[in-house]
């Protein structure tokens, strides 16, 4: 991790329409950090992630993404797999190829180099044998690997993952998290991962953002995810 800020939120309010879910959020994430975004259901985890991604406009405040090498930073997004309609007869390779679309101008065909890169991303996520299979027919864990390959295919400056381990079995969760750990270790990628799984975040992330009763707590895993602190926050949530 470097000292350089990669993402800054200044007095940001997030929500839908007139419904404010979180207000006055101030955050600073550094390049090369691995941050878990924790919180109970409905606490605004996915909403804040989508606001950072530009999918939902902020209701107030300012989001600053630091340029990378003089150009706007590329955001690699991995959505929740249930949000993708299984009616599409897309091969896994076609899904990953979507990741390179940001670099290919409209009207131009995807070059061989970009196709090779998509294959390489599939290999990196251990999903190269799935490339010809229909995405809709893959298991939950396999889909996550393909979606991670797609996010990597964007050549991201920041990787944003929305519940990558939700709804998959323990073995697949372990494999996905090991893969993410490997990507973090090898590429020093800036990662923001939404999760409701405390254990997963504690084991793999370095920093944590905990959304709790409209407040945003931000700190190192070693500070925020101690047993005492968790107990204190959970007690507050139960009350």
């Amino acid at each position, binding site marked *: 991790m470097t000292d350089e800020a990669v993402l800054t939120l200044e007095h940001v309010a997030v929500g839908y329409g007139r419904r404010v879910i979180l207000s006055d959020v101030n955050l600073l994430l550094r390049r090369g950090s691995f941050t878990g975004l924790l919180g109970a259901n409905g606490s605004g985890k996915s909403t804040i992630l*989508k606001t950072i*991604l*530009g*999918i939902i406009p902020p209701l107030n405040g300012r989001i600053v993404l630091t340029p990378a090498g003089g150009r*706007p930073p590329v*955001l690699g*997004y991995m*959505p929740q797999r249930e*949000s*993708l*309609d299984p*009616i*599409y*007869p*897309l*091969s896994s*390779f*076609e899904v990953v*190829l*979507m990741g390179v*679309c*940001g670099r*290919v101008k*409209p*009207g131009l065909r*995807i070059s061989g180099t970009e196709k090779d890169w998509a294959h390489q991303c599939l290999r990196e996520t251990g999903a190269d044998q799935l490339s*010809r299979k*229909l995405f809709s027919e893959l298991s939950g864990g396999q889909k996550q690997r393909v979606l991670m390959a*797609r996010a990597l295919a*964007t050549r991201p400056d920041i990787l944003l993952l929305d519940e990558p381990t939700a709804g998959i079995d323990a073995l697949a969760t372990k494999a996905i998290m090991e893969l993410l750990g490997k990507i973090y270790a090898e590429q020093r990628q800036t990662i923001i991962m939404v999760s409701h799984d405390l254990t997963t975040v504690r084991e793999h992330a370095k920093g944590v953002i905990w959304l709790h009763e409209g407040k945003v707590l931000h700190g190192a895993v070693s500070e925020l995810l101690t047993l005492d602190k968790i107990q204190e926050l959970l007690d507050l949530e139960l009350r």
Partner: protein
Amino acid sequence: MDTLREIFDPHFLLRNSVYISLLVGLVCPLVGVYLVLRRLIFMGVALPQISSCGIAFTFALQGWGVIPHVHQSEHGLAFFGSSLFTLPTIVLLSLLVRRGRGSVEGRLGTVYVLAGAWSILLLATNPLGEHGLLDLLKGEIIAISDADVGWTAATFCAVILLLFLFGKEFLLISFDREMAVTLKKNVLFWDALLFLLIGVTVSMTVLSVGPLVAFGFLLIPSLIAHLFAGNMRQFALIASVIGGLTALGGFCIAYHWDFPVGPTDVALLGVVYGLAFLGQKSVGLLKSRRSQAEGGR
């Protein structure tokens, strides 16, 4: 074989009907795949009806003397009327579908039935008579001029070209709109262009072959192709080939037994769909039995 030779003879009286059938059969499914994928099948039913209502409306305006009656510009005027009704409706309906509030099927059903009723009312009140529109509504593909074929071919070529050039953008915004936003794609623009292509294709098809055939070729070939496609390219290609072959087969049958072409085409599409469905289920059953047998060994 003799029928095929006869209908492809350059002096064949109904050659334009063959060309139009083939064009519609090959191109409509390419647009129809997006209606199926975006779960807008009901829209595929309602749009041709809206389009024919637009045609009836422009002819009625001529009949009532609101606009002058010029025979030469009739086709262009009808296309204008059809597009005028189709394009705003497609935008409005897609917005309603996207918001997902209320009963989307109910709204589409209401649009369908109202457009049908208004088409008939406009025909009935047109002082110039039914103007050949009744044949159009029934799917009689007979009175097709060289100019009609030319215009339809030119429009469809433009549609194919744009679908080919911007296929990756259309697919991305349809499959994962959020990802498209993160990749800085202008989602509204690509949505609008896709709907414009769908609208223009529907308008042109309804103008040439009527709403029944338009609906049939927009949706059924894509639904058949969906049973077998292993990727997007196969999906579009299979749908288009099935559409083209069925259009040709339907024309041959209709010509040989003196049936109306449009309903024959659609009925044939239904038979192909039924056979494809049974074929796919049988293959699936055989595969699962084989794997069970191998597992038992």
